[in-house]
C-alpha cells in the first residue's frame, strides 16, 4: 500500500478562518484576493494584500503553507488585474499559485519562473495529455483534478503522470458539471464562475412565498419549492428540482455534499499528493470541524487504522452526503 502522507489543503475565506484551519491541523491553506480574480468572489470574503501578508507570516511560523487561488478567466482587455494578483501573491511569499487560465499561466511562468504553479480545478484537466501539456508548457507541478474521475481512474492517472502531483477534493460542495466548463449560472443570472468568480450568486437569490410554501429563485428561474414545514435551501442551479420526462426531480444532483471520510484508505492508496476541503465561503465552525475530522482520519489511516467516524452531518448541505464521481455508480 502506498503510504505517502497526503497534504491536507484547507479553505480560508477570512484571516480568522485561516488561523482556525492551521490550529485544526491544516498542512496548507488556500485563499483568494478580495476581487473577481478568484472563484469564490463573495461579499465580505477573501483577503486584502496586507491581510494576505499577515496570513502568510502566521502560516509560515506554524509550518503551514499558503496557496493563493487566482482561478477565474481574465476578462479580455482587463488582464492587468489578474497579472497584478499574480505579481502580488508572489511578492507576498505565497507557497503556490492556483491558476486556471492558459494566458495567465503563461504570464506567471514567464514573469515568475521560480513560483510554484498549481492547476486549478477550474481548468478541468481530466487526462494525462492535458496534464502533461500544463506541466511541460508552464511548469505546473500539481493539478487539482476535476470531480469526474473514479478513485481507480485517479490511481491509474497518478501512475502515468508522475512526478506531477495531484490534488483532489475530499469534502464540501460538489460541482456536478466539469468545473470551469459550466455556464448554467450566467445563463440564468449573467454571472458565472469563469468570468465573475460566482455561481448562483446571492444577489440573484429570492425566496418567494406561495400558497403551499416557499419558492427559491435565482433571477427569474424557480430552482426549487419547499413546503411550509421544510427548510428552504439555497438555490444552487445544479442542485435544484426541475421537470423532465413529466417528472419533478433533482435532475442533476440532490442538495448534497461530498464526503470521502470513508474512502480515505482508498484515496491514500491512490497516490494522491494533497486532499482538498472545499468551503472558503464557510465559517470557522465548519473549518474547525471538517479540518479536524480529516486530520484525524488521514493520521489514523497512515497509522494503520481506520478513519474515526466523525459527525459532520450537521454541516453538510441538506444533511446529505455523497462520494460523488469517486464511486462509479454516481455516473
Amino acid at each position, binding site marked *: 500500500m502506498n503510504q505517502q502522507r497526503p497534504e491536507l489543503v484547507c479553505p480560508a475565506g477570512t484571516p480568522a478562518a485561516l488561523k482556525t484551519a492551521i490550529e485544526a491541523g491544516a498542512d496548507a491553506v488556500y485563499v483568494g484576493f478580495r476581487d473577481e480574480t478568484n472563484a469564490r468572489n463573495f461579499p465580505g470574503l477573501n483577503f486584502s494584500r496586507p491581510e494576505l501578508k499577515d496570513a502568510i507570516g502566521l502560516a509560515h511560523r506554524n509550518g503551514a503553507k499558503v496557496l493563493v487561488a487566482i482561478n477565474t478567466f481574465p476578462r479580455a482587455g482587463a488582464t492587468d488585474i489578474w497579472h497584478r494578483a499574480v505579481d502580488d501573491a508572489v511578492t507576498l511569499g505565497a507557497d503556490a499559485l492556483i491558476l486556471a487560465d492558459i494566458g*495567465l499561466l503563461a504570464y506567471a511562468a514567464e514573469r515568475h519562473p521560480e513560483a510554484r504553479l498549481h492547476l486549478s480545478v477550474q481548468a478541468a484537466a481530466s487526462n494525462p495529455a492535458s496534464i502533461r501539456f500544463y506541466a511541460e508548457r508552464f511548469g505546473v507541478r500539481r493539478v487539482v483534478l476535476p470531480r469526474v474521475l473514479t478513485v481507480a481512474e485517479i490511481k491509474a492517472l497518478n501512475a502515468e503522470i508522475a512526478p506531477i502531483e495531484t490534488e483532489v477534493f475530499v469534502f464540501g460542495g460538489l460541482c456536478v*458539471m466539469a468545473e470551469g466548463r459550466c455556464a448554467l449560472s450566467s445563463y440564468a443570472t449573467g454571472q458565472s464562475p469563469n*468570468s465573475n468568480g460566482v455561481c448562483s450568486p446571492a444577489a440573484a437569490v429570492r425566496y418567494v412565498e406561495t400558497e403551499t410554501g416557499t419558492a427559491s429563485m435565482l433571477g427569474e428561474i424557480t430552482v426549487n419549492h419547499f413546503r411550509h414545514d421544510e427548510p428552504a435551501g439555497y438555490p444552487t442551479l445544479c442542485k435544484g428540482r426541475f421537470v423532465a420526462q413529466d417528472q419533478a426531480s433533482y435532475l442533476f*444532483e440532490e442538495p448534497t455534499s461530498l464526503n470521502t471520510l470513508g474512502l480515505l484508505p482508498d484515496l491514500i492508496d491512490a497516490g494522491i499528493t494533497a486532499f482538498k476541503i472545499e468551503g472558503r465561503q464557510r465559517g470557522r465552525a465548519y473549518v474547525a470541524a471538517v479540518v479536524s475530522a480529516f486530520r484525524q482520519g488521514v493520521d489514523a489511516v497512515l497509522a494503520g487504522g481506520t478513519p474515526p467516524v466523525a459527525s459532520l452531518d450537521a454541516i453538510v448541505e441538506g444533511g446529505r452526503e455523497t462520494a460523488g464521481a469517486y464511486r462509479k455508480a454516481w*455516473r
Partner: protein
Amino acid sequence: MNPARLTLGPLLYNWSAEAVRDFYFRIADEADIDTVCIGEVVCAKRAPFLAPQLPEIVRRLTAAGKEVVLSTLALVMSAADLNLIAETATDDGVLIEANDVSAAALAGGRPFVAGPLLNIYNEDTLACFAGMGAIRACLPAELPATAIATLAESASIPLEIQAFGRLPLAVSARCYAARSRSLAKDGCRFVCAQDPDGMPVDTLDGVPFLAVNGTQTLSHHYLSLLGMLAPLRQAGIDRFRLWPQTVDMVAVADLFRRTLAGDLDPAEAGDRLADLCPGRDFADGYIHGREGRVLVDMEMAD
C-alpha cells in the same frame, strides 16, 4: 473586410445513422455553408455509431467544396478517449477542432481549430492557442460583444462566433438522459436517442429552461444573432457558427447568408427564422452582457 463565412457546428445529438447520413448529404448538396464540423463531441459511448459512415460523409462534403473539420470530444477521461483523439489529431490529412486542451496538445503543432468548448476568454489565452497551431478559434458562448471586440482587435487568427442554435452550457461525467429515466450511465440503452433536439427541462412552475443531451446541458433557447451580424462584422468577426437543430438547417443557413450579404433585412430574417423554428424561443443575452436566457433584440420576439 474578409468575406463572411458560415460554419456548421458538429451535430451534438444522438440521431440515428440514417438521419445523420441524410442530414450531412443534404448539407453537402444544398447548403450554402463554407465549413462543416462533424464528430462525436458529447459522449464517447456514441462514437462507434458515427465511425462507419464518417468516410463517406466526409467525401461527399469535400466533393461539394466544403471544408471539413473533425470535432473532438469535450470531456476526455479514459485512455480509449485519448487514443481516439490522438489518432485523429496526428493525421496530417484532417483538420481537427479541439474541444479539450488534450486535443490541442496532441495535435503537436499541426494546424487545428480551437473549439467553442475551450476556455478562451482573453487575448493572452487566444495568443497561446494561436502559438500552438490554432488557425482559427470559435469563442465560448458567454462572451459579451465588448470582450469579442477586444479579442478581435488583438487576434492573429480569424475568430468565429456562435450565432444560431441551442447554446452548449455544460458537460458532465454524469448522464442526465439516463438519470431522468432511472438508468445508470453504464446501462444507458442510449436513451439520449429519444431526444434529437435535447430533452426539455422545465422549472417547477413550468418555465422552459434547459435541454439535456446525454451528459451535456444546453440552453432551452435557440440563440439567434441575426440582428448582431453587422456590428460583429464591423468588429472584425469573419465567421459565424450555426448549431444543427431539428429544423431546416439549409434554410437557416440561407437566412444567415443573405443577411450577412445585406440582401435581407435582419428584422425580416428574424421573422423568417421564427417561422422556420416553430415553437422555439430565442435568446441573445450573452452578446449584450446579460443573462444568456434573455432576449434583448426585440425584433426576434413574437
